[in-house]
């Protein structure tokens, strides 16, 4: 065509259009050519510009917001020594979910996760795995729900990902880099830091560079302080991270820094401090969505669903397309016996363009319980079609099983729960429900085996224990019934039927 754009400009244009692969390739070509002459009025050459652009493109490819990144590994969870109070007072710790006074939903209505929290409407990298109480519990968790170990950690996997994709080895050889030289050039250093931190996942080198750069900036650049704080956080030095973030906040008030600081406090198990921090932040940044959302998340994790819902509503007042807020309010309505309102929230999500398995599954459930039967099965069909892996398929079949139970088609229900187990062999709820169906058919032995599987897979659920207690009591095995009933009471202290059963059994034992 004859009208070839200037290659660096072309690369820059690719970058702006988020075509990072093309941008990086073009920069590579530029870097392989002869180093261009330096512009007289600039301290940076074209060569350096291409190099910096390539680092930024490579970073953007794997960039994940660090505020959301929060992966606890098994060792960190179980051997956590950062919490200040080992036996925290009620309402001041995230580790004792049952201690809130706000009245969490009862497990009889809303299923709980392994850590005893009600299931949430939205899942982030940090909420993915519940906190197991003991090492044994952590290891016994089914593989799919297990928190990652450091060997399989995402941090590391992403780091190696960068090397796999590049056949000639890494773009920048960190060990041969003279970090002190780069620290002198703030514009290059910032791009380089992000590359080391996000793309290479080499926190130690990143910290080294940041320390040199902040020294060069005479400790006047808040940005470097935040980066040092991020590095300390990753290295597990939470108190040092706190200092850096606070110092950065003094220089420049930023929402991001507030969020990072709150993350530190949450890791130190100080939710109340984090809440205060968010509220102070809201004074300075009124109506900031991420801050309100942070407050709502803390309330939710403290098992205080009603005030969490209030804050999520505040979020929606500021930003009416906030997916997390809509999803959480929706699930809250579903479990407080208002499926038709939940349906409206989920429909809103559908209108906004969310199109995945989870949403259609929720729509199907809401439709069924709101008695809109025409949409129910087609929603579930769509959910099955959109499922990305076997765990998701299992979830959908499990919920379909409930629909089948609801319309009284027990054969269909039986098949649905069986299909759940075909897709996910660790699905404790499905084992329990199958046991109930077997019991209806009078197959006591099968029911017993299924219940035992269910309770060993998910000791935190009260249903399998309770059912086992009922079953054993029926066949006259009072001792086993009593042990199971006690486990059930441990999992759900307020369950009336369990209490009655225990009372009955105690009477029996007294008569003997």
């Amino acid at each position: 065509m004859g009208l070839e754009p200037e290659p660096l400009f072309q690369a820059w244009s690719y970058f702006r259009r988020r075509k990072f692969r093309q941008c990086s390739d073009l920069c590579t070509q530029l870097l392989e050519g002869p180093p261009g002459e330096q512009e007289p009025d600039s301290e940076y050459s074209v060569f350096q510009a291409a190099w910096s652009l390539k680092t930024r493109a490579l970073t953007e490819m794997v960039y994940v917001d660090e505020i959301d990144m929060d992966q606890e590994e098994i060792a960190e969870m179980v051997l956590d020594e950062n919490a200040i109070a080992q036996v925290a007072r009620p309402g001041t710790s995230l580790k004792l979910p049952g201690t809130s006074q706000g009245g969490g939903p009862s497990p009889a209505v809303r299923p709980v996760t392994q850590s005893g929290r009600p299931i949430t409407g939205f899942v982030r990298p940090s909420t993915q795995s519940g906190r197991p109480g003991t090492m044994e519990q952590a290891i016994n968790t089914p593989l799919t729900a297990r928190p990652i170990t450091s060997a399989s950690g995402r941090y590391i996997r992403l780091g190696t990902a960068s090397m796999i994709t590049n056949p000639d080895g890494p773009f920048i050889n960190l060990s041969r880099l003279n970090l002190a030289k780069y620290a002198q050039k703030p514009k290059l250093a910032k791009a380089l830091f992000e590359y080391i931190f996000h793309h290479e996942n080499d926190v130690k080198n990143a910290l080294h560079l940041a320390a040199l750069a902040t020294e060069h900036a005479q400790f006047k650049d808040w940005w470097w302080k935040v980066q040092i704080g991020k590095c300390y956080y990753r290295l597990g030095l939470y108190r040092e991270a706190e200092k850096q973030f606070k110092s950065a906040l003094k220089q420049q008030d930023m929402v991001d820094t507030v969020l990072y600081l709150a993350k530190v406090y949450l890791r130190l198990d100080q939710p109340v401090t984090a809440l205060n921090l968010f509220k102070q932040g809201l004074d300075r940044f009124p109506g900031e969505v991420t801050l309100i959302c942070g407050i709502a998340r803390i309330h939710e994790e403290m098992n205080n669903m009603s005030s969490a819902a209030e804050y999520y509503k505040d979020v929606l007042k500021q930003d009416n397309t906030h997916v997390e807020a809509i999803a959480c309010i929706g699930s809250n309505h579903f479990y407080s016996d208002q499926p038709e309102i939940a349906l409206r929230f989920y429909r809103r999500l559908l209108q906004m363009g969310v199109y995945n398995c989870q949403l259609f599954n929720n729509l199907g459930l809401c439709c069924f319980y709101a008695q809109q039967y025409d949409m129910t099965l087609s929603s579930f069909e769509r959910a099955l079609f959109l499922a990305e892996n076997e765990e998701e398929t299992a979830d959908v079949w499990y919920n379909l099983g409930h629909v089948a139970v609801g319309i009284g088609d027990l054969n269909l229900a039986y098949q649905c729960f069986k299909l759940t187990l075909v897709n996910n062999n660790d699905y404790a709820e499905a084992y329990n429900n199958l046991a109930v169906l077997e019991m209806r058919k009078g197959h006591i032995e099968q029911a017993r085996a299924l219940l035992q599987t269910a309770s060993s897979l998910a000791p935190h659920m009260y249903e399998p224990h309770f059912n086992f207690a009922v079953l054993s009591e029926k066949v006259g095995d009072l001792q086993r019934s009593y042990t199971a009933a006690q486990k059930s009471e441990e999992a759900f202290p307020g369950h009336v039927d369990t209490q009655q059963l225990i009372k009955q059994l105690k009477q029996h034992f007294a008569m003997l």
Partner: protein
Amino acid sequence: MPEGKAAFLEVLPKQGQLSVEDTASMVLCKPKVLPLKSVSLEKLEALQRAAQEAAARQAEEAPQPQPQA
């Protein structure tokens, strides 16, 4: 409450026995509303999948090391 003969009167049986057998029935686990995934989680999973696929492809392409005699 309208007064007079038109009002409905409750009927309480005065004789006979009323017996209720209260047996505990087994409980089903509740239906699960699935949580939606955040953007960063989806991106993480996509990256992880891409990395695994790339690793698998490299493992396939790489020639099998010959065992030393």
